[in-house]
């Protein structure tokens, strides 16, 4: 039998039994659609997090006080007790290292801001002028912190856009005095609004000189030192040098943790990638279930059409022809189901993107390819047994069942 004839025969047979055909196509399409949508969700989450991390700045090396046992990124570092302070001078010393473009010390705390009786709690970041280019902060009005001796700490502040709105409304903010904690500071700049990001929301941030913040919070240690390397290639070298300089300054003790943004990114990337893979695996189970359904449907088809199989044999069909005809039918059910499921899945992902525009819910290519080929594979695999049964049928017995 010629291939086009086999395909036409299988197609007619599938159309001839619309109920069971639509059932198995539906099962297969739900399986594929769930793979597409779930991996779109998982990969969307990965992209979202990676995107947010990248927006922290580029080529970053970060120093945390306290030592982490593994040397890798560990969220517990944030609360490790500090044996020795990470000071502003430590941070300044890092400027010596080759490959370092700029350094920004960072200290953080919460305080209250008030203007003319309006009061609210704010996050205060104490840092230097270099913090702005490192974090890619852009100013909506005024200027950044002044370039000055890091130890000086003039009484100025750069405020986030939400703070400006709440404190000043439509009135001009630049040059006005605000009270932060027990200090009176002059507003020199307002950050451009950026909206919600990962971690700190810069719209609700008040940035002051680092020495001022330390005095305000009565602390000598820094929360972080952010270092921008000159290039991506320089990152590993900068990391080593930074660790070495701080070790010398801390009398040979390695009591800080140096992480690179790459490492953090890679960790999250891996974590969420694994999550996506896991979700895809779960969705693949539904594909296997769909495959088994196709098998049952084909077994029913073989039983239903026993008389026809006997007739085909009487008319000179070889076992191979009959096997191919039934396999082609199973493959068609799976292929149509897979295609339909793919379209449904893409539609679902599209709907997700419409409802949550910040969330890049695109199914990854590998998942789409794997989903489609698993669908076809299981369809063929599970179609094989019924096809074999049909091919091996005894023609006389088969002809009697009519």
């Amino acid at each position, binding site marked *: *039998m010629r291939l086009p004839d086999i395909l036409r025969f299988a197609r007619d047979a599938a159309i001839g039994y619309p109920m069971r055909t639509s059932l198995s196509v539906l099962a297969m399409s739900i399986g594929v659609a769930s793979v597409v949508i779930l991996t779109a969700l998982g990969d969307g989450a990965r992209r979202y997090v990676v995107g947010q991390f990248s927006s922290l700045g580029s080529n970053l090396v970060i120093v945390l006080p306290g030592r982490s046992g593994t040397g890798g990124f560990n969220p517990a570092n944030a609360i490790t007790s500090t044996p020795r302070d990470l000071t502003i001078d430590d941070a300044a010393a890092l400027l010596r290292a080759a490959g370092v473009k700029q350094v920004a010390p960072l200290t953080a705390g919460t305080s209250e801001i008030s203007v003319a009786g309006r009061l609210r709690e704010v996050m205060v970041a104490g840092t230097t002028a270099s913090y702005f280019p490192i974090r890619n902060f852009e100013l909506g009005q005024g200027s950044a912190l002044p370039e000055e001796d890091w130890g000086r700490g003039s009484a100025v502040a750069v405020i986030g856009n939400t703070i400006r709105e709440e404190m000043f409304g439509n009135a001009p903010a630049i040059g006005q005095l605000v009270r932060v904690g027990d200090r009176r500071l002059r507003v020199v700049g307002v950050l451009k609004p950026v909206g919600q990001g990962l971690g700190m929301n810069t719209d609700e941030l008040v940035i002051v000189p680092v020495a001022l913040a330390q005095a305000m919070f009565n602390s000598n240690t820094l929360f972080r030192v952010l270092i921008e390397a000159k290039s991506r290639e320089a990152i590993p070298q900068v990391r080593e040098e930074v660790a070495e300089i701080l070790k010398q300054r801390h009398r040979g003790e390695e009591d800080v943790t140096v992480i690179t943004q790459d490492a953090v990114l890679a960790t999250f990337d891996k974590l969420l990638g694994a999550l996506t893979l896991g979700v895809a695996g779960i969705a693949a189970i539904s594909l296997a279930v769909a495959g088994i359904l196709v098998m049952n449907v084909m077994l029913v088809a073989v039983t239903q059409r026993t008389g026809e199989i006997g007739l085909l044999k009487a008319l000179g069909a070889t076992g191979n022809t009959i096997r191919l005809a039934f396999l082609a039918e199973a493959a068609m059910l799976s292929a149509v189901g897979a295609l339909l499921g793919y379209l449904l899945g893409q539609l679902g992902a599209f709907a997700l993107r419409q409802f949550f525009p910040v969330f890049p819910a695109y199914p990854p290519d590998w998942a789409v390819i794997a989903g489609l080929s698993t669908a076809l594979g299981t369809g063929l695999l599970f179609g094989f047994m019924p096809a074999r049964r049909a091919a091996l049928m005894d023609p006389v017995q088969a002809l009697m069942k009519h």
Partner: protein
Amino acid sequence: MALIELKGIARTFQLGDTTVNALADLNLVIDPGEYLAIMGPSGSGKSTLLNLLGLLDRPNAGSYLLEGRDVTTMQPDELAKVRSTRIGFVFQSFHLVPRLTAAENIALPMTLAGIPAAERVKRVAQALLDFGLENRADHRPDQLSGGQRQRVAIARATIMQPALILADEPTGNLDRHTGEEVVRLLEELNERGVTLVVVTHDQALGARARRQLMMEDGRLQSDSTHLPPLQGEGRGGDGLIAPISNPSPSPPPP
């Protein structure tokens, strides 16, 4: 050369611990172009014999030569090829594929044999004309009368131009008049040289054949070619009547 030569054929079925001898020690020779009716009581083995002749079943013992070739040792695919090219079946219950049109049903053996579509269309058009079905080409079986269905089935059985047509009670589901028509068609085929073997319960129908076999309990009870019926002896269609009434039938073109 004989078309069919059966020697010492036995076919048994195992039903639990009892063995049913559906065919026992059966000897038969059929020449090309013969018109033969197989008759006998229910359960005498007529259908079993026809299935064997049509290569749908294998004997438990004995030899079967079809056009001089031993078919009992053939592989399933070879048997399928022989069925495809040399044998046509007509069944009591028509056995049409319900979702295919009359034309597609007629074309089915050619489709299975891999004959190109253009050739199929040509031959089906001719067959539809020959069997008076030209207005029914696109009808599905459930839109046809019983007689029309059987005509479609006969057209299908002849479309590959076989040497042998096997019909198991071809008029069993038809009224007398329609049955008559169908038999006429089959006889016309035989007149053009196709060997025709019909299983029937109908005395009148059986009497129309040039040769009658009576079966009983899986054995040949009588063979009209032999004036005194010979029992248990290995002789077949080399008797008196068949050769005279069938001077030199030529097999149809392959």
